């Protein structure tokens, strides 16, 4: 089996992460932040260590870093929480966004809390940047954008947008679903809130997400409940991370996320990007002579290690099923991002997505290219 579905979740996980989950279930079995006995306090310390490591990765303080169920939850907290704290506002986003960005925004607009506009990413980074800036006006309170599109992997000019947002006093929320663990973006780059999953490029277990804030903008909680603090007060705590961490967190996975971040940092983000990007280049080159394969990339743009492609004469889902039957695991379809597919012109059938990880080798990719070229070189009608 060769797994190329790492943009959905990385697999396999590092041995250190697997061992950390087991150790967490054995050694940190009490509820953190709830009790005063030694096992609970020990678990709290382990969670704090994970919090510190994640915070450091995104240039945040541990106190301003909360764990969520996944990146979608983090984005919902950020988008709805800031918008509600601002008393409603205009939101600018892009046509590269995942449904976990556009759906919360749409939901706010249906409630008449927000109005939104979508910047076009057609063309260069300069054009995307200009498009975002030109849509911001006096009503704009938030810009939400991905650091890299989950469909075609396009990297966006986040740092330039951050500079612009700072000058206009606009809150910038960045979706790092695909970029975390691959691209080094931090709050110190001028971003106000970073949302990331723990289970993709950070190699942690599923059921983990991170929201890191610079504290400049209030994030009103959208879920209230027990936090282990202010227990006699009917109101939800207004301080991080408690304000966003109601109920027991996914403690074993969060503790394992600590090991995962250590794994990523020991490999180095640049090395990881370089390795995975080289595999993408190898794949693109490997199928470049095959006239039936169309790769969705443009000259002059930067990409995350994600490649969307289609094969003429076969639907993406049929192709992915055929790949799966032969031991190659890739995701096909719309990747929960209809905006990007509309832009790419693939909204009718979607694409197949090739997404390698640090554990994939050149041989894996060459084997896959050989399979495609052998089975899909001539059109079958």
């Amino acid at each position, binding site marked *: 089996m060769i797994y190329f579905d790492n943009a959905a979740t990385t697999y396999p996980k590092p041995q250190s992460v697997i061992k950390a989950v087991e150790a967490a279930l054995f050694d940190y079995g009490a509820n*953190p*932040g*709830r*009790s*005063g006995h030694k096992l*609970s*306090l020990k678990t*709290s*310390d382990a*969670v*704090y260590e994970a*919090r*510190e490591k994640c915070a450091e990765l995104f240039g945040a*303080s*541990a*106190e301003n870093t909360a764990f969520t169920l996944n990146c979608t939850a983090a984005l919902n907290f950020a988008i709805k929480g800031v918008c509600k704290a601002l008393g409603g506002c205009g939101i600018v986003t892009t046509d590269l966004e995942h449904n976990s960005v556009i759906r919360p925004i749409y939901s706010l607009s249906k409630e008449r809390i927000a109005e939104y506009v979508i910047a076009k990413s057609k063309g260069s980074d300069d054009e995307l940047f200009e498009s975002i800036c030109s849509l911001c006006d006096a009503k704009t309170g938030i810009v939400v954008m991905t650091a890299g599109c989950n469909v075609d992997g396009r990297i966006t000019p986040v740092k330039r947008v951050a500079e612009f947002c700072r000058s206009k006093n606009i809150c910038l929320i960045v979706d790092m679903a695909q970029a975390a663990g691959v691209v080094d973006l931090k709050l110190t780059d001028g971003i106000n809130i970073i949302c990331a999953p723990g289970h993709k490029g950070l190699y942690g277990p599923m059921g983990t997400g991170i929201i890191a804030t610079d504290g400049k903008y209030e994030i009103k909680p959208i879920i209230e409940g027990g*936090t*282990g*603090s*202010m*227990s*006699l*007060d009917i109101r939800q*705590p207004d*301080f991080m*991370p*408690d304000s966003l961490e109601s109920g027991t967190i996914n403690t074993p996975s969060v503790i394992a996320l600590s090991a995962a971040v250590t794994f990523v940092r020991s490999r180095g983000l640049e090395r990881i990007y370089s390795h995975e990007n080289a595999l993408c280049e190898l794949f693109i080159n490997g199928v470049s002579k095959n006239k039936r394969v169309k790769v969705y990339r443009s000259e002059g743009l930067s990409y995350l290690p994600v490649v969307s492609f289609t094969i003429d004469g076969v639907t993406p889902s049929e192709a992915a099923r055929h790949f799966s039957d032969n031991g190659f695991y890739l995701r096909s379809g719309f990747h929960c991002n209809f905006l990007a597919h509309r832009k790419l012109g693939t909204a009718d059938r979607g694409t197949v997505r090739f997404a390698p990880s640090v554990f994939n080798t050149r041989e894996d990719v060459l084997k896959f290219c050989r399979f495609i070229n052998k089975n899909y070189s001539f059109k079958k009608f």
Partner: protein
Amino acid sequence: MKYFIILKNATAASGAVKLLRRKGFRVQQGRISDKNGCRFGIYTDNDTEKICSILKTYNFCCISVKRIGERR
């Protein structure tokens, strides 16, 4: 330990203990319940004013200090 310094939450308590131990203080994380609900913080025998002053420089807010006597 003689004193309990109340901090904002469990996260702050873990962070404060880690910081203070690194600086050579003998402290222990803990949790108490009082009329304001459940509170996380640190037990210590050391000079609480000095500790709170150090914590303040690292953005940890000491909410209050309780004298707990020789309970340990």
